[in-house]
């Protein structure tokens, strides 16, 4: 069944170019979600931090650096696969997954239970946007980690090669996108005064 | 080009007819405020322009369908022409000019009305309008009067402060033309000058739930002197505890459930209540002093009188009633020995 279409479809279209454009468009659309959340935060609470909110600055900085580090290892994993270095790929992929998971746990299992002590409540005040923004971001981190795990396992079974590694590229791009979002969320949630 | 003569002539003739019709037609509800004149004339101007465009397009459209229909036996295709840059530029630029000119005019009209987004001026009559599901209340803060009918003087500008208790409503008297939403957590303002004596209705224009269709309150526009007389009477009532209390109690429906003659209705009677001991459903006994009465109005579930059910009385009187109205009711209850 594939033979019929492959005969004339394959040479005409560069599947990789299609995939890349599709992924970028999808990320552009996702960007809107985060823009809406940022707008909500600024409309409701202005450009500073409302009175009585003391977010945990140290925790914020630590998880930011952690996510940044995971982006670097993701970059190294993709580059390694592009240059045929499978060991470096597997190593860096695993590192990314671990750091991503730790980030997720740090937000959901550590920071969230502590938040009410810093004046952040789910139902009212700055807590609304705090939980909405970290929650939506964490949801994207979760999907990213799941995809990284799938790609890691597939890679261990030899699914990718320097000539064909779209799965790696897409997942890593998505991971960078999650990091990119945090670049704007971190200051909006922690740093403004 | 000869083909253009007939449609052009028809366009001119029918445009004149359409414009004349627009000029004569009663396009809107009968006006009753000074602002209506400007709104209506802008509307009519828009309709003149629309009528001409409509006639122009329809004449050429119908003419083309008739003149360029395929006749029996014809087989060929139409004339082959692609485009005409001059024409395209013309019908881009001309609308742009109309849009800019009309945009300027539209901005002037709403600015000159000084009806929305303006500060209160000294001689405005101030009225606080509160929308709640599904009724309106009107307060005249300078006079200390609150009503459920909107009574206004003719010929004086009225500064409405629009508030909402529960959901979004929209304050609209069609005869006054301009409407404005009442929004929880936000105060909107609207300044109108009623100039026709008569009876109208304020109609909620924003979907607000079950009885939205019936969220209408009477509006009476009176001559200035009549208004003053009405207001004097209201002020007198408001300052007389024996009269203000009964009025508020009627306005908010209290006496539907609380009798004033000792008979037992859905709620405890008011007769002989104040100052006496009340036994509650939880077995305790309290004295019905001012604090107890106030608490029973604003938080009816706090203390349930023995033999009566909870969850019958609305819990939103704290937001619907002014402090003065609550005090009036308490004062009234105290008169019912």
């Amino acid at each position: 069944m594939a033979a019929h279409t492959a005969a004339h479809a394959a040479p005409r279209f560069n599947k990789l170019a299609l995939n890349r454009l599709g992924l970028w468009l999808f990320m552009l659309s996702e960007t809107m979600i985060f823009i809406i959340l940022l707008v909500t935060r600024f409309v409701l609470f202005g450009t500073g931090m409302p009175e009585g909110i003391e977010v945990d600055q140290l925790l914020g900085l630590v998880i930011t650096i952690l996510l940044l580090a995971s982006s670097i290892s993701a970059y190294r994993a993709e580059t390694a696969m592009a240059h045929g270095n499978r060991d470096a790929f597997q190593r860096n992929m695993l590192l990314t997954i671990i750091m991503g998971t730790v980030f997720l746990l740090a937000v959901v299992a550590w920071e969230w239970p502590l938040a009410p002590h810093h004046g952040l409540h789910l139902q009212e005040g700055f807590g609304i946007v705090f939980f909405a923004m970290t929650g939506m971001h964490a949801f994207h981190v979760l999907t990213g980690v799941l995809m990284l795990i799938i790609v890691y396992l597939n890679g261990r079974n030899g699914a990718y090669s320097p000539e064909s590694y779209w799965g790696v590229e897409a997942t890593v791009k998505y991971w960078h996108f999650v990091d990119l979002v945090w670049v704007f969320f971190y200051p909006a949630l922690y740093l403004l005064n | 080009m000869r083909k253009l003569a007939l449609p052009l002539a028809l366009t001119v003739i029918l445009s004149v007819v359409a414009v004349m019709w627009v000029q004569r037609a009663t396009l809107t509800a009968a006006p009753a405020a000074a602002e209506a004149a400007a709104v209506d004339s802008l509307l009519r101007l828009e309709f003149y322009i629309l009528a001409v465009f409509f006639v122009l397009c329809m004449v050429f459209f119908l003419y083309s369908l008739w003149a360029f229909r395929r006749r029996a036996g014809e087989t060929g295709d139409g004339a082959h022409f692609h485009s005409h840059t001059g024409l395209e530029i013309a019908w881009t630029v001309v609308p742009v000019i109309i849009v800019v000119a009309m945009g300027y005019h539209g901005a002037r009209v709403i600015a000159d009305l000084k009806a929305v987004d303006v500060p209160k001026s000294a001689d405005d009559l101030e009225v606080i309008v509160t929308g709640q599901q599904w009724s309106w209340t009107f307060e005249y803060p300078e006079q200390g009067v609150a009503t459920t009918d909107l009574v206004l003087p003719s010929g004086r500008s009225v500064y409405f402060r629009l508030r909402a208790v529960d959901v979004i409503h929209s304050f609209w008297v069609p005869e006054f033309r301009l409407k404005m939403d009442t929004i929880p957590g936000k105060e909107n303002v609207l300044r109108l000058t009623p100039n026709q004596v008569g009876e109208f209705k304020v109609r909620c224009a924003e979907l607000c739930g079950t009885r939205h269709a019936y969220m209408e309150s009477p509006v009476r526009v009176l001559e200035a002197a009549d208004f003053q007389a009405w207001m004097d009477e209201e002020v007198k009532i408001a300052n007389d505890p024996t009269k203000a209390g009964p009025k508020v109690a009627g306005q908010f429906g209290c006496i539907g459930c609380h009798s004033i003659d000792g008979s037992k209705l859905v709620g405890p009677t008011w007769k002989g209540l104040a100052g006496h001991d009340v036994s509650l459903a939880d077995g305790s006994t309290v004295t019905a002093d001012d604090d107890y009465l106030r608490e029973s109005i604003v938080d009816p579930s706090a203390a349930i009188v023995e033999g009566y059910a909870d969850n019958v009385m609305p819990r939103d009187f704290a937001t619907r009633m002014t402090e003065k109205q609550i005090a009036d009711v308490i004062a009234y209850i105290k008169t019912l020995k």
Partner: protein
Amino acid sequence: MRLFSYGLVRALVYGVIGLVAGMAVTMAVRAALGLAAWAAAPVSATGSIVGTLTFLWGVGAFTDWWSWARGAHAAEPPHHHRDGPEWPRYLNFDPNHRIIGVQYTVTSVIVMLTGGLLALTFRLELAQPGMQIMTTDTYNYLMSAHGIIMIAAILMGVGGMANFLIPMMIGAPDMAFPRVNALSYWIAVPGLIMVVSSLFTGGFDTGWTGYPPLGVKAPLGAQFFYLGVFVVGLSSIIGSVNYIVTIIKMRAPGMTWFRMPIFVWGMFATALIQLIATQFIGMAFLMVVLERLLGMGFFDPAKGGDVVLFQHIFWFYSHPAVYVFILPGLGVISELLPVFVRKPLFGYKWVALSSMFIALVGFLVWAHHMFATGLGMVLNNAFMVTTLLVAVPTGVKFFSWLATLWGGKITFETPMLFVLGSWVIFLIGGLSGPTNAFIATDLYVHDTYFVVAHFHHTMFGGFVFPFFAAIYYWFPKATGRMYSERLGKIHFWLMLVGFHLMTIAMFWIGLHGMRRRIADYDPTQGFGPWQTVTTTGAYLVGIGVTIFVINMIRSARRGEVAVPNPWRSMSPEWQLPSPPPDGNFETPPEVIGDPYDYGLAGASYVRVAAPSAAGH
């Protein structure tokens, strides 16, 4: 079980199982946390989300991805060549764009009939003042559901036209991502089911706009409405990614941007809007659901929220969304006119770019829905001017269409009648727009029947009539059979007359103060007779649509076999057999001329290798 070989049946069964399982798990978790196990809102919310996923699993949407995730290489885009009847393909997860197009279109018609039935029901109530056959709550539920169901139907119709036409028109074998394409259709189905089920789970009385705080207080049905729209929105977004990539990357050799069929331009503009704006309604509704479920006070002033913020987010989608509804329709008008006039489309580039300009300006006008919320004069005036600017590109389209008619050899088959009808209806819709754009007059006509009539004119002229035109026009392409011309014409005239009866009365009473969205109206205002006229018109439209459905069903089964190119069109899709084989073109077609060179001797648009006679 043979029944289980149909994806739809499997999907429904799996969906119900997922719904029940999701609800059970939620209840178990609640009980474990020490809460009351049953709470309708959270339990049904998680249940419907799980049900949506299992529905997709049941239909087979995840089969290939699941095997990919497990490490197996998924097959290439599976273009099935099956023996036996073709119709089971329409009930399955099938990645072929033509099948998906028909699936979308049929779904659209079914959903539209549902929404129409609701309208006919409450129209009966409105025919006279006073409440006769229903409560005000029932009216509110029907009216609200009518709005959103019709919008969902329109989105499905847009998806139908886009899927069926884009690949054939640009000479591509299929969409860029066939599996994603099928997913975008199938994910909409549970969304639609959720939206419709809102009527049976308590209804919602907020209108389709779902404004909080009313939306937060509304019955449980509102939750299904919000979640359903969210899911349908996902479908829109993934669909639009596919359209854009396909249009940018997969055009036939020689097909430059200004040699694309004009409908593709309309779809390109539409897809850009869908891609960027749809997230806004999704997030706005998600935030209300979070407020309902978890008490997060985004829009509750007592908790630090802002009521008007919702409207900004909501209209940032919902205004551009009306261009999503009309741009494909206007594309159909531009596409069909030259064929029936036998003359090139006048000012092709201007018509194409005007679609892009409308899409762009569409993002800058949202707050004209909010003049009555007290935005302040600066914003008011800015949005008034941007709104008026929409008239310019729309005017370019209208005048170009007039110039296309001029000097042609016009014939009046059913598709052409619908095109001409939509021209008239959309003209009135467009001309009634500025009244809502000027602040002073908008503060008068806002939330009246004038707006209702204006909106129905833009929707009927911009979508419904062109959609019917498209269905009649491409019916032979999809089925290989011809529809009944006589029934088609009866359908057209009933709709045209009925629709105008309906809206002219609406315009008139709207100007005289008839509020919209009210179950009952003050008899002293004298609107009763006009409302009766409106109801009569609505029923004529209903009869017309019934005839359409009969015509379609009969013709698809027993219609006369269509000739290969019944409209003598130059467009690539008509150079293919009907229905076209999977993969469309044996070899890529080559574009050698302009798309609408009718009337030029020897002109040709595409060169297509002689199609195999068998088709498939």
